[in-house]
């Protein structure tokens, strides 16, 4: 909690006025229930109000219900800056550019999987490397890696690592516009080129998950996403652009730290180093950051390919017969150039989302299966056709009070390598078995409650 003046301005919307900190250009707004607000660490309030001081910010610095402290922005932080007069900041995106979530459905049931769980997890562990020093199965030339930077997941499909419909379920079709490989350092390339198809470490994971007995909330909408019954097995990935994105973040944080002086910009936190979006430095970072975002889409697509190979082999079926389709793939560490109406004016904005996902827009994934549903979902993480937010709720921790987007920073990442975690399916031989507090967007439900302005309709719980 905080000593700052935090005023309720709506149902589960709190505002910290600009008078609370010198330099704030706009208010800070936090979306949370009173309970969630009280649980938020002091860093959230400091950081979201620091963001409100950045040049060109529009309307407010925002924090989502599962906000927690990060580097520069809080995790769960969202801020839009005017493209013509505002800034771009690596601290609003994070080192792991286009870290994101992907969920695959299957036709398998828990009863079918459990007897082969050891074999399955061991095979996944071998096929999707994780941890320090891991390399992926794809070897790329420099020219091919440039293609990945520009084409993202599309490159994977062109080379046989995916199904055409995967792109329909992926934010932006698996490729964001504006990538500029010429702004990517050789160091970033050499650091990340061999890591495509690897999971990483920290809070990243690959989980085999199961829909619990009470997990289907709206059978019709859930079916539209391919989630049809309790006991159904799904696979979830959480990872990003690996060392490639980490190096781009490092390169430009360092560069902006020096460049700010030339633009007369001062920031309250060095992790908020930034440059005018239209400056040479700002444009260079945007091009490099987008290249990393596309590499992240390719990374998740390649892992999807490996998961399909493994499950096909372990269960002796073609992956298509196993129904291993992508339910959705969404980013939560990006900056995008978007046009929004602000106070009646159409503005081009650089929207930073850190640990936050865009919903309800044209470029979030569509679930083709949803066609024909009267009130069903037409977007995997967007809105129902009557404009209510809609999502598939992932990985609720049973019996626990905490529901976070990822484990956040509330617990250690410096544990021994966690290998594979398996959601609801415990593995007899590996550590870190059992349930993880990995909970997608479910903090919204917990924090806002029925009838709140952010109430999202849960169609299924995994």
């Amino acid at each position, binding site marked *: 909690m905080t000593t700052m003046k935090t005023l309720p301005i709506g149902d589960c919307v709190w505002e910290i006025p600009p008078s609370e900190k010198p330099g704030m250009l706009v208010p800070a707004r936090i979306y949370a229930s009173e309970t969630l607000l009280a649980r938020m660490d002091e860093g959230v309030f400091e950081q979201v109000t620091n963001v409100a001081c950045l040049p060109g910010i529009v309307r407010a610095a925002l924090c989502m219900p599962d906000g927690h402290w990060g*580097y*520069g922005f809080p995790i769960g932080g969202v801020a839009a800056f005017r493209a013509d007069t505002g800034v771009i900041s690596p601290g609003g995106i994070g*080192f*792991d550019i286009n870290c994101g979530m992907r969920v695959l459905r299957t036709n398998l049931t828990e009863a079918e999987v459990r007897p082969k769980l050891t074999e399955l997890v061991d095979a996944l562990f071998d096929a999707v490397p994780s*941890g*320090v*020093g*891991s*390399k992926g199965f794809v070897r790329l030339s420099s020219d091919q890696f440039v293609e990945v930077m520009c084409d993202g997941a599309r490159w994977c499909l062109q080379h046989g690592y995916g199904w055409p419909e995967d792109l329909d379920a992926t934010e932006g079709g698996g490729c964001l516009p504006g990538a500029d490989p010429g702004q990517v350092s050789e*160091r970033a390339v*050499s*650091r*990340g080129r061999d*890591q495509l198809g690897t999971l*990483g*470490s*920290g*809070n990243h994971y690959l989980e085999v998950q199961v829909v619990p007995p009470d997990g289907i909330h709206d059978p019709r909408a859930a079916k539209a996403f391919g989630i049809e019954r309790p006991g159904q097995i799904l696979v979830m990935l959480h990872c990003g652009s*690996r*060392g490639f994105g*980490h*190096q781009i*973040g*490092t390169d430009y*944080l*360092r560069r902006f*730290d*020096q460049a700010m002086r030339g633009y007369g910009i001062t920031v309250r*936190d*060095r*992790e908020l*180093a930034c440059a005018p979006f239209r400056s040479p430095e700002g444009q260079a970072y945007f091009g490099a950051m987008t290249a990393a975002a596309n590499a992240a889409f390719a990374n998740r697509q390649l892992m999807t390919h490996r998961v399909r190979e493994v499950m096909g082999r372990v269960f002796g079926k073609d992956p298509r017969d196993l129904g291993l389709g992508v339910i959705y793939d969404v980013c939560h560490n990006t900056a995008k150039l978007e046009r929004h109406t602000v106070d009646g004016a159409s503005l081009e904005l650089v929207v930073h989302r850190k640990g936050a996902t865009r919903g309800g827009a044209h470029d979030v994934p569509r679930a083709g299966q949803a066609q024909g549903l009267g009130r069903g979902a037409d977007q995997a993480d967007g809105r129902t056709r009557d404009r209510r937010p809609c999502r598939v709720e992932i990985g609720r921790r049973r019996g626990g009070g905490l529901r976070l987007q990822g*484990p*956040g*920073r*509330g*617990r*250690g*990442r*410096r544990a*021994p*390598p966690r290998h594979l975690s398996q959601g609801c399916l415990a593995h007899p031989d590996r550590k870190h078995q059992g349930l993880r507090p990995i909970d997608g967007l479910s903090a919204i439900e917990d924090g806002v409650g029925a009838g709140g302005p952010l109430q999202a309709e849960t169609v299924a719980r995994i």
Partner: protein
Amino acid sequence: VGRHEFLEAVAVADCAVEIEGDDLDDLFTTAARVVAEVMVDPTTVRATTERRVELTAPSLDLLLYDWLSELIYVKDSEQLVFPVVEARVSAGSPCRLSARLVGGPIDRATTALRSDPKAVTFHQFVLEPRAHGWRARVVIDI
């Protein structure tokens, strides 16, 4: 030999560490050893590779940032870690580091792996002189 302490209260999820050295050489050397220890159990790395690193930066704190970032970069680009470090640092314009590193490849069969750092952050980043030596605080994003 410098001293270090992990600061769980600062960053329980990542790696916040406070480092003290009798002088700049000691501090930069100790900081590099800490980064190696965060990534692997140093006793499980075969010392087969020697490397020299030369860096310059406009200030001492940026030199420390670049130095630790270099070690993370080499971990990913060459799969090398260096538990044995001898660093020489001089303040000036620019500030300079000259280091000798001894270590070896990350062998996933024999090296005890720990965490996989993403980056050195500027979060609470400090390098400052003290009455008897130097002190730094570094937070590494895991």
